[in-house]
C-alpha cells in the first residue's frame, strides 16, 4: 500500500483512488479503538489540534474533537465569534497567530470556498478541510463511503443517488469525486435550480425525476435543504420541495429492497426526509456518525506526519 504524502486534506477531487482507499482502510483499523474500555491511543501525544470553526457546527466539530482526543492530541476550539476576525484581522493574520503558538494540525470550517486552501498555503501546520463554502467536505464524503463499504462490502459498481441541493452542497461535491474515483455510478437529483451549472462535465448522471433517482439506486444520500434557498427563489416553498423531492415511505416503494438511506445531518424531518424513513430499517444515519469518528482519526493520523 502507498504512503500518505500530503501535508493537508483539502478535498477529494485532488486525491487518487489509492489515496482515498488508504484513508478508508486506515479508518477501518481505527474503528476498533472506540469500542475499547479505554478509548484512547497515545499516537498524537504532544500534538496540538486546533478546531477553527467559522460556521456553526455541532457534529463535525465534536467528531473531530473526539477523534483528536482519542489519539491523545490536545485540542483547542476557536469559533468565529471568539476569534479576532470580527475585529478586522484577516484570516491569514489569525492563522499566523495561531501558528506562532506551535500547533500541528488545523481543522477548519469556513463559509467561503477555498478558505482552507488559503490557510494551507499560509501556515506550515497541516490543514484539514471540515467543509468550505459550497466546495468540499472531504471527511463527510469519506465517512459516507466508509459506511457504504461497510454495509455493502464494496463501492465499485454501486449506484448512488444524491438527492437535494446539489448546487450549494459541499457534501455532494466531495461524494461525487470520492465515489466515482472508487468506481461507483453517481446520479444527482433535484430541481434544476439546485443543480450546478456545468454539471454535464461532472462524472454524474442528472435527473429531475426523483422516482428515477430512487429506482435503481443501491444508496440514497439525501441532502439537507437550507431554508435560505427558498428566499432566493430557488424553489417556491419547503412544502412544494417536500412534495416533489422529500423522501418518504411512499417514494421508497420504488427503491431496491436493500437500499441504504444516508443523510449528512442535521435532518429537517418532514422536509427532505420523512421521520419514518430517517428512523426506518434502511437508515444508516447514526452509523454514519459513528464511522465519522474513525474516518477523522485516520485523517488526523495520516496528515500528522504528511508532507514532511
Amino acid at each position, binding site marked *: 500500500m502507498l504512503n*500518505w504524502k500530503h501535508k493537508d486534506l483539502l478535498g477529494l477531487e485532488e486525491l487518487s483512488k489509492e489515496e482515498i482507499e488508504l484513508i478508508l482502510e486506515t479508518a477501518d483499523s*481505527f474503528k*476498533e479503538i472506540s469500542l475499547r*474500555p479505554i478509548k*484512547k491511543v497515545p*499516537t498524537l501525544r504532544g500534538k496540538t489540534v486546533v478546531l477553527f470553526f467559522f460556521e456553526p457546527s455541532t457534529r463535525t466539530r465534536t467528531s473531530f474533537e473526539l477523534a483528536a482526543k482519542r489519539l491523545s492530541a490536545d485540542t483547542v476550539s476557536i469559533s468565529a465569534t471568539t476569534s479576532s476576525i470580527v475585529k478586522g484581522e484577516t484570516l491569514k493574520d489569525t492563522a499566523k497567530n495561531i501558528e506562532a503558538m506551535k500547533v500541528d494540525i488545523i481543522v477548519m470550517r469556513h463559509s467561503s470556498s477555498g478558505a482552507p486552501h488559503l490557510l494551507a498555503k499560509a501556515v506550515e501546520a497541516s490543514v484539514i478541510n471540515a467543509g468550505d463554502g459550497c466546495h468540499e467536505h472531504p471527511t463527510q464524503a469519506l465517512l459516507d463511503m466508509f459506511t457504504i463499504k461497510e454495509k455493502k462490502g464494496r463501492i465499485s459498481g454501486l449506484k448512488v443517488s444524491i438527492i437535494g441541493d446539489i448546487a450549494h452542497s459541499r457534501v455532494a461535491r466531495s461524494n461525487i469525486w470520492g465515489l466515482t474515483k472508487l468506481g461507483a455510478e453517481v446520479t444527482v437529483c433535484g430541481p434544476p435550480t439546485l443543480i450546478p451549472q456545468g454539471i454535464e462535465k461532472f462524472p454524474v448522471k442528472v435527473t429531475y425525476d426523483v422516482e428515477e433517482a430512487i429506482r435503481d439506486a443501491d444508496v440514497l444520500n439525501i441532502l439537507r435543504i437550507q431554508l435560505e434557498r427558498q428566499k432566493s427563489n430557488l424553489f417556491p416553498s419547503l412544502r412544494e420541495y417536500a412534495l416533489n423531492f422529500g423522501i418518504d415511505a411512499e417514494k421508497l416503494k420504488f427503491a431496491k429492497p436493500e437500499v441504504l438511506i444516508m443523510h449528512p445531518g442535521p435532518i429537517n424531518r418532514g422536509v427532505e426526509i420523512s421521520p419514518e424513513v430517517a428512523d426506518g430499517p434502511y437508515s444508516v444515519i447514526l452509523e454514519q456518525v459513528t464511522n465519522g469518528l474513525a474516518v477523522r482519526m485516520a485523517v488526523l493520523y495520516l496528515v500528522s*506526519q504528511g508532507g*514532511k
Partner: protein
Amino acid sequence: MVFREKAKILDEEGIKRALLRITHEILEKNKVASELGIVGIRTRGAHLAQRIAKLIDEIERVIIPLGILDITLYRDDLTLLSTQPIVHKTEIDFDITGKKIILVDDVLFTGRTVRCALDALIDFGRPKIIQLAVLIDRGHRELPIRADYVGKNVPTSLKENINVKLKEVDGIDEVVIEEKIDAQLET
C-alpha cells in the same frame, strides 16, 4: 539497505521444534490452560501466536482466545519517520482482564516493540499476568524487558539482521541471519 544472507539459523523443522518446546513450557508454567489468552504482534508474531494456540489445542484440547495486536499507534518513533506507517487492525475480541496473556513476537531486539505492545494491552483491560514468548532473542536491549519463553538465543552484531520467514506470509519457514552489505554507503 541491502542484506546478504549469512547463515540459516532455523529451518522448518527447527521452527516447529522451537514452537513445540515453547508451548510445553507455557503449559507447564501456567497449569490451567483455560486461564490463558494469547496475543500476537503483527505481522509474524500473530502467525506464531496462531500456531502456538493450535499446538495448545492439540496437546490440551483447549481452544484459547487469540488476539492480534498492531502496535503502530503506540510507537515511540512516529515523529522521526518521514511518512506515517500503515495502521492495520487490532483484533482482540475477548476480555483480557484477569487472564494470563501470552504475548508473542518473532524477534526480541531492543524491546521497544514489546513496550508498545504492553501499553496497548493494558488499554484493553487488566490481565492477571503478561508473559512474553519470542522465536528469536537477538540481544541489544534498550529497555528492561526480557522474554519468558525463547525459541533460540542468537548473539548478533548491530550490523546484522534477523529475518524470520513464515509460510503464511513468506511461503517458507526459516530464520536467517543477514549482514548489511552496503554499510559503507549508508550515511
